[in-house]
């Protein structure tokens, strides 16, 4: 993580004075992340069986939930304050959001730490956080393309109508909430992976975290179908703003004001957790490299 110290700030300023050179430096610095992006993209396609099955897995969950909601709304067309179309849009929308917000690269960090290949990053002139993010970006781009294809395919196959949000303000806020949700998820996921600095046993806690998140984020069902007590508890936890909030904004159920409130909450959580993750990173790095012992 780069903390812009006074010294650093000075360096940036003098770089600016050097004119075109600064652009080249940034360009060559950025290029390595582009290469990582390309390699990660290729890696995904290399294990093609793996990749296809990964997608199939998402489709099955999507279908399961589609059928459950379809069944409960069959008679009256609504359920728990949602219309049938809203619920189904929720399910399909989540599938797309998963591709954007949930990523797997951050999990790789844990195994890298545990098998020692993490050391390579300490020697290379590369920022681990950014590197992870670039690789993540590649994987997510690929997933997004396929997620969109899946939604289109299945909604036409099952002959469902989905809600298409047209309100520009809502859409803008939706996009903003997605961006914030991605950052929030990445923070949590990255932090969980960093636990590997302290323990060989990283897979179990990861599993626990992933499943808790599936429900607490609203990926399986909208938080507000729970009893009011539970719904309010989960509502304020940061996890709900990862999936539930963006979908609610998209469906127009929050309105503009509610959307801003949600986004504010997301921002608060990011501001709260960011320094924590940084702290965990530093402590973990110390432990890994044996400093401060």
């Amino acid at each position: 993580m780069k903390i812009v110290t006074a010294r650093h700030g000075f360096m940036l300023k003098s770089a600016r004075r050097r004119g075109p050179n600064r652009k080249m430096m940034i360009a060559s610095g950025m290029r390595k992340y582009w290469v990582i992006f390309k390699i990660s993209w290729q890696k995904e396609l290399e294990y093609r069986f793996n990749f296809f099955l990964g997608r199939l897995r998402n489709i099955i969950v999507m279908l399961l939930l589609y059928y459950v909601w379809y069944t409960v709304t069959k008679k009256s067309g609504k359920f728990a304050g949602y219309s049938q179309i809203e619920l189904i849009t929720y399910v399909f929308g989540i599938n797309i959001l998963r591709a954007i917000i949930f990523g797997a690269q951050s999990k790789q960090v844990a195994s890298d730490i545990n098998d020692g290949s993490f050391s390579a990053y300490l020697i290379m002139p590369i920022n681990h956080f950014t590197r992870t993010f670039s690789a993540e970006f590649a994987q997510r781009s690929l997933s997004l393309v396929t997620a969109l294809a899946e939604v289109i395919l299945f909604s036409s196959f099952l002959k469902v109508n989905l809600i298409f949000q047209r309100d520009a303000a809502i859409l803008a806020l939706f996009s903003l909430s997605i961006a914030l949700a991605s950052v929030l998820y990445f923070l949590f996921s990255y932090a969980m992976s960093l636990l590997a600095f302290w323990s060989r046993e990283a897979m179990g806690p990861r599993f626990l975290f992933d499943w808790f998140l599936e429900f607490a984020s609203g990926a399986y069902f909208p938080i507000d179908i729970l009893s009011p007590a539970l719904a309010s508890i989960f509502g304020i936890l940061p996890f709900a703003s990862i999936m539930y909030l963006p979908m609610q904004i998209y469906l127009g159920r929050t309105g503009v004001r509610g959307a801003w409130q949600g986004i504010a909450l997301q921002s608060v959580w990011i501001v709260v957790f960011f320094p924590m993750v940084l702290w965990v990173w530093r402590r973990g790095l110390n432990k890994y490299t044996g400093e401060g012992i």
Partner: protein
Amino acid sequence: MPIIEVRNLSRNYEYYRKRPGIEGSLRGLFRREKLIAEAVKDVSFSIEEGELVGFLGPNGAGKTTTLKILSGILFPSAGDVRVLGHIPFRRQATYQKQFALVMGQKNQLWWDLPPRESFVLNKEIYEISDSDFKRSLDEFCELLDIGGILDVPVRKLSLGQRMKCELVTALIHRPKVLFLDEPTIGLDVVAQKNIRDFIKKYNDEKKTTIILTSHYMEDISRLCRRVIIIDLGKIIYDGPLEELVRRYAQHKLLIIYFSAGNVKIQDIERYGEVAAIETEKAVLRISRDRVKETASAVLSSNLPVDDILINEVEIDDVIRAIFSNTAAPRGGNGSLLPK
């Protein structure tokens, strides 16, 4: 009656080629190029009871493939294989109970648990009686000095200790035939010696038939009287080690570094066989008894010598020498001709 009999063994396998770049990956998603490699080509040999034979060859030569076929793990593509009268790939329990396979750097011991637990597992699998088991275990504890580590989790043991325990796991059922694939790889010098001494003793006492593959000259020279050299899937030498040593490892290498680049090959040739020459370096192959005097001759000559080294010929170099064109002339099928 040979214990191990291999006749005209061949083994092919298929693999895919990947094209580079993003375009290659996308294309590879739907159609890939299939290629065929011949790992073992028409190999024949037989081994008698109690022999300790070394399998040598560069990486990818086909040594491990041959061992796997003898263990019944791989099918041959063609040819006839018999060990102890059994056909290995039938994987009959009667055959499996009589042989053992040890692969260096691959462990069959359970990582988190003491070696003793893995021994007991093998005891059940190989149907060893309690008394036989105890007797064997005691014997191995003494021979390999592992009494103290029997109850220490494997992940806490050093590589050398782990290898010892791997050997015990393999030998606890007293196999008649033992396949050792690089057993000393990655071990330090002391550990290598321990393993080596143990294998020799075991072979002497129990007359177990052993096939050993290794990259280390020491392993081969100390243990094997006979070596089989495989390269590119074919046997290019099958005979006594002495013969091989006599021809190739009776030399040492004299490496001369020059301070000037104008040394001509004629100036050096008179000191001995030139194995390699570059602008500022020359490598001579000199017989062991003459290397010191040659070195002093070179140093006291008017050649612009900057540095001089005397090196052993490694088994890898022996093999490389065998395989390179500057070495012994070869027969039609690549086998070594007698000088």
